[in-house]
């Protein structure tokens, strides 16, 4: 079954390429606050000249999946067309009390927690409809979390391509090496989505892995 669906996936990707119209659907996944929307915005700004989503230092800012269709990325003399899917941050726990320290009122915090939980469910459901994933991690944090393991396990089980993005390398405490050591079987690209560092390497990686 897995083999068949993987073959079918490849076949439709190939047909799409021949006719040059099918975009590759790439999900941007990861825990809250790692910089997924910042990265989605940067990719879309670099290649389509606009923003998609709101960025904030309060976790669970993105609570609905957002798709920007047909973003064409040029690499060398070739190109790849992507649908960029920015997803709500994945979590195994959501406590409305955590939002109070950001100055939210109790009712607002409770509403945010409920929407955040719904957002997680939507993110997980989208895993079934993607051609590949950019798994974003915050390079200043411990990479070995259940959320990261679950995303990686699901991509492996579905035999779908994945790139790990080690974000926030502009920060002094960033340690992309930790991420590389934690997931040695995967390609890790260290970037700063905020500053735009190393984006060319990421675009090369996207072209190599998802085309």
């Amino acid at each position, binding site marked *: 079954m897995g083999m068949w669906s993987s073959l079918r996936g490849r076949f439709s990707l190939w047909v799409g390429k021949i006719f040059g119209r099918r975009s590759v659907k790439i999900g941007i996944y990861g825990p809250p606050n790692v910089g997924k929307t910042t990265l989605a915005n940067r990719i879309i700004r670099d290649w389509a000249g606009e923003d998609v989503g709101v960025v904030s230092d309060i976790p669970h800012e993105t609570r609905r999946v957002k798709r920007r269709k047909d973003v064409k990325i040029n690499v060398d003399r070739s190109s790849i067309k992507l649908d960029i899917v920015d997803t709500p941050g*994945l979590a195994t726990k*959501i406590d409305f009390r955590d939002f109070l320290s950001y100055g939210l009122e109790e009712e607002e915090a409770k509403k945010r927690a409920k929407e955040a939980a719904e957002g997680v469910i939507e993110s997980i459901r989208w895993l079934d409809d993607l051609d590949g994933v950019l798994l974003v991690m915050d390079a200043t944090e411990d990479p*070995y979390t259940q959320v990261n393991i*679950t995303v990686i*396990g*699901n991509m*492996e*089980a579905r035999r779908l391509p994945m790139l790990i993005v080690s974000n926030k390398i502009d920060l002094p405490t960033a340690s992309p090496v930790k991420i590389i050591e934690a997931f040695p*079987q995967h390609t890790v690209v260290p970037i700063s989505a905020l500053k735009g560092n190393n984006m060319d390497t990421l675009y090369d990686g996207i072209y190599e892995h998802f085309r």
Partner: protein
Amino acid sequence: MAYTNISGEKMVRVDMISEDLLASMTSAEKIRMILDGVIEGKILVLERGLMPEEEAKLIEATMVEISPEFVGIEIESYPAKERRSLMDRLFGRTKSQARLTVIGSPNQLKTIKKDRGLITALISEV
């Protein structure tokens, strides 16, 4: 919710779930058992971890239950590289389930330390 012993002291209940029991359960049963256990205040130790698809379903089911009273779960399991046992290698299996998984409420499982072959759960006072 905490348990008390005969002398009225508060205690944490830890349920060890064997590989055999897990193998006899469907995914839906495992997920229900885990969530109900955590909601009751138990800490669960699974001898064999969940499949990636089950982990995703567990997160989904957890999110359905989120409320001001239930803030979710904490899960810890072994790293992937340590998951490939000798048996896996002999049989040429690349993916196997995690060996040991600890699940509990985030408030109870304050910190879980992972070291080579050892998981130490620091359980907060109840």
